[in-house]
């Protein structure tokens, strides 16, 4: 629903509900979950596998809707998010809340009945962790928000894996750790060149609270355990050479870009080319790393 110029209520368009689910974030969630599912030992019926991925996508959509419900006021203050359905006035908040709760309940319920209750429990916990722990508690209160909150985005490959095996072993925990350690350098690179936006919204991102030098040190510092964790599946002989070589190359590029960020002293967003390059590459990095991991486990190994 939305309020038009003479204070009347018009129903929101279906596209606005679609936008609430943050489709671009959802695509990364679906992709990493699919890689976890494909790389897991054993087999799953295609219908059940599709259902697991669909439930994960709907769960991610619920997270997006609930996040936008809770952050409508913050979104209105940032240029990057001001055009979203709630701050733009194309939908009322109650619709977003109902949509988010409905999607969450539906996705968890179907996951439990059709796939297994371990996956349903993990999905329910990750939705709760993102929508409540991260959005309401961590994000507005601590500069470590995305470090701890990164756990929510790290669950999808674990759930994909557990859909096949019915349990959580060392490998899915490693996949979790890769995304968990990837999140700080990824988001802090964005936070550096979007510092003004986050500052205007009053979100205590690390560059705003501790400064740009500390943030650049942290980005470079987190890149090393991330790279080591990404290479571990090969070191533990859980993958073949294809993944091993790809992991080394991708992490070398990531570290080189993180080094350039560390060396950069720019305070103006326009001069933060290394930060923008690291942010863009970090997305490609995760896509390629997980795609090659799944390919290696399925075809080569």
């Amino acid at each position, binding site marked *: 629903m939305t309020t*038009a110029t003479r204070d009347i209520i018009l129903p929101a368009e279906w596209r606005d509900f679609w936008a609430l689910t943050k489709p671009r974030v959802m695509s990364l969630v679906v992709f990493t979950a699919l890689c976890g599912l494909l790389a897991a030992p054993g087999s799953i019926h295609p219908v059940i596998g599709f*259902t697991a991925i669909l439930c994960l996508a709907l769960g991610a959509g619920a997270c997006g809707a609930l996040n936008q419900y809770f952050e409508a006021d913050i979104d209105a203050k940032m240029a990057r998010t001001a055009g979203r359905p709630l701050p733009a006035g194309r939908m009322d908040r109650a619709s977003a809340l109902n949509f988010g709760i409905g999607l969450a309940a539906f996705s968890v319920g179907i996951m439990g*009945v059709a796939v297994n209750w371990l996956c349903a429990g993990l999905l329910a916990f990750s939705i709760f962790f993102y929508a409540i722990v991260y959005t309401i508690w961590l994000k507005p209160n601590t500069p470590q928000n995305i470090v701890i909150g990164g756990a929510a985005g790290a669950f999808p490959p674990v759930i994909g894996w557990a859909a096949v095996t019915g349990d959580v072993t060392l490998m899915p925990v490693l996949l979790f750790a890769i995304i968990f350690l990837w999140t700080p350098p990824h988001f802090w690179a964005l936070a550096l060149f979007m510092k003004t936006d986050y500052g205007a919204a009053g979100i205590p991102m690390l560059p705003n609270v501790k400064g740009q030098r500390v943030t650049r040190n942290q980005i470079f510092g987190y890149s090393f355990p991330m790279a080591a964790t990404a290479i571990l599946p090969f070191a533990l002989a859980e993958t073949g050479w294809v993944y091993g070589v790809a992991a080394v190359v991708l992490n070398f590029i990531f570290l080189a870009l993180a080094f350039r960020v560390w060396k950069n002293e720019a305070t103006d967003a326009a001069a933060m080319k290394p930060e923008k390059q690291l942010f863009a590459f970090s997305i490609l990095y995760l896509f390629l790393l997980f795609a090659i991991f799944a390919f290696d486990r399925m075809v080569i190994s």
Partner: protein
Amino acid sequence: MNQNEPSAYTAEETAIIRKRQAGRSRVMGIALVALCILFFLITVVKVGVWG
């Protein structure tokens, strides 16, 4: 709504509302049909018809 009561919306607003309602109904219809098919397939798999 009583047919004799004057509408709270102008003709232009009513057209927008009808268009949005139609769009949402179409999407909801497609989603429901897709879910019916999915639930049928899940049931068939779960009861082991395809082994």
